[in-house]
């Protein structure tokens, strides 16, 4: 398995709280090696109960929690796009979903920030 958006966002939240893998493992009473594998994308997202314990100690904001929950249930999201959405309070899970659905014509690939802006624009136009 390659890097997963869910794992990358988990690691970002942990590092933001300045917790080591061992710290988080000890707080959540979960094997730190298991957490490490989730972060590296070598394990699927954990069962709900374990997910809840991790989230309790990562203390995400409401927006961060919404993004994390979206990634918990949605595969094939670009990790760079997910990280950008995590740091953009306006990039709701719905916006992230629209950005993930993109189908390109041509070889050009916009950066995550541009993709999120395009998704916001698409939502505005379709609802307007």
């Amino acid at each position, binding site marked *: 398995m390659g890097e997963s958006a869910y794992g990358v966002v988990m690691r970002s939240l942990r590092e933001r709280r300045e917790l080591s893998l061992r710290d988080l493992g000890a707080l959540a009473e979960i094997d730190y090696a298991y957490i490490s594998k989730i972060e590296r994308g070598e394990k699927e997202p954990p069962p709900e109960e374990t997910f809840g314990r991790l989230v309790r100690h990562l203390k995400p904001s409401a927006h961060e929690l919404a993004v994390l929950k979206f990634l918990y249930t949605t595969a094939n999201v670009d990790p760079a796009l997910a990280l950008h959405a995590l740091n953009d309070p306006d990039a709701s899970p719905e916006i992230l979903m629209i950005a993930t659905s*993109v189908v390109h*014509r*041509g070889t050009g690939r916009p950066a995550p920030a541009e993709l999120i802006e*395009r*998704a916001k*624009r698409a939502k505005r*136009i*379709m609802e307007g």
Partner: protein
Amino acid sequence: MTEFEAELKARRFVQETGVTKVPVDLSRYLERISSKVSLDDLSPNEAGYTMATSKGALITLNALDRAARRRFTLCHEIAHLVLGLPSDHSHGPEWSYAKRPLNEVCCDVFAAELLLPVNLFTDMAKGRSIDFDTVDYLRVEIFASREATASRLAATSKLASAYLLSEGGKVLHLVRSPPLRDAKAWIPRGTPLPAGSAAYALRAGESRSGTRTYSGDLWFDGWQDVEVAESSVYIPDYDQTLTLLCCTDQDELDALSRPMTTEHAKDDDGLLKPLDGQLKWPGTRKRR
């Protein structure tokens, strides 16, 4: 999915939408799939993109592209949505036909049918010659690109004809009319433009467009007696040549595939004797 299946689905889609005139009002297709279109200034290597929202899909096209190209792009994006085929543009620049993945080819086939519906197109092309004068007339009426129109003209022709797209002096893409397919005439990908062709001369800097008539074996093996008319245009920016070939002598073409006549059979007398049911090799006596 095959190209044939994509074409059948496209014809059904056009029929169900009730398209009856050209240039086709593409908004009718969009309404049918609850989608909208918008324009935006995108980079030169982006023709467009599609995003799915809870209210339907938004197809965004590059405002800097030519209008005719945008129309084809829009039909191509509609194809992705209708056929449910994922996009794959990892093969190279958008203008290049090199190694196009099957999904993209199927979406191009679907798009061509949406933009140039076969019944309307064949009515307009009826009685016209297979050359770029006809293409230039049709593409204005249909509001489509020269490439899409030329490809369609060859594909729907009742004459043995072909549309070739060459890049760097080699054939990349071939579209054949049904009679040419029946004649089993084929030009392999990568074939160099033959020295006697108009396309070859245009690349050598002769001019931007030209026509020539010559013996068909310049392109097809065994076509010495079949006359072929060529019409070509050259696009220096991409080093691409667009070529239309048309067999002008259907009788000679028919003769190629005609079974041997009695007279021919007489010529073979003395080569093999007719079968008479008698075995010619030594009898059934067992060897010791």
